């Protein structure tokens, strides 16, 4: 007699723990949202090549691109655009001719979404390539 009673009590307690009378709030996916950020990278660009990085703007705002340095010092193309099939996988919206510097050489208003920025050879890169250092600041 005692065993069935204990069993019944255990079942009752177990199911009571499963109950939930509080309204639930729908939860959103736990993937952390992309946020504003700064991406810095170095890459060796081969003759005729490109060095492109993609990034995601989490909101509308302004993107700035700074070619910090090239080694050896040379002039290269610097551009910003959207991921595609053109230059190094980047369809360039705006391009400039740039050498290293501390001030952004490119800035552009953007909507939220995926973008890309990078350098491309203008025919000036020697056979050993060039080390480019670049910083992208995005919303």
């Amino acid at each position, binding site marked *: 007699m005692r065993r*069935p*009673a204990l069993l*019944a009590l255990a079942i*009752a307690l177990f199911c009571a723990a499963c109950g*939930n009378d509080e*309204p639930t709030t729908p939860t959103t996916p736990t993937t952390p949202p992309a946020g504003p950020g700064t991406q810095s990278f170095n890459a060796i660009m081969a003759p005729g090549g490109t060095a492109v990085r993609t990034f995601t703007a989490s909101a509308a705002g302004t*993107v700035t691109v700074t070619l910090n340095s090239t080694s050896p010092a040379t002039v290269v193309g610097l551009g910003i*655009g959207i991921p595609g*099939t053109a230059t190094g996988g980047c369809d360039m919206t705006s391009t400039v001719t740039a050498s290293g510097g501390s001030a952004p050489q490119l800035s552009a208003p953007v909507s939220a979404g*995926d973008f890309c920025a990078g350098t491309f050879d203008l025919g000036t890169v020697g056979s050993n390539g060039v080390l480019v250092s670049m910083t992208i600041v995005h919303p």
Partner: protein
Amino acid sequence: MTHAFTRPIVLALALAMAACGSSDSSTSPTTTTTPTTELFEGKLQSRGDSMFFSFTVSTAGNVDVTLAAVTGATSPGASTNLALGLGLGSPLATDCNLTTQTTTRPGLTAQLTGSNFSPAIYCVRVFDVGNLTTPVNFAIRIVHT
């Protein structure tokens, strides 16, 4: 004896059902539609040239169209700031019947936007407005529901 054995089980089941019962207030799941992004790339060869691209809106919502790149076809990578025509409309036979259009230079924010598009097939046209002297490559981003 039999009653003594079954009574606790009946009681337990009653308690279990009460504990697991649903509450009065319920929540309904929210539906979030993730926008679809499409890339339309091509080349305009000569003055007056145009191309169009069709896409399908599957649920009612907004459409954003961005002429993102216009680059010289003979010098890959270098952008041109050439203004092109950009239009949005619906397919008509083998053409694209524009309902809205603008002339714009490439940028990274949408130059054409529309809201409350019903589920259907739509099209985007890019066309020369008289500025084209050499072939250009273009890239258009379309974001829709």
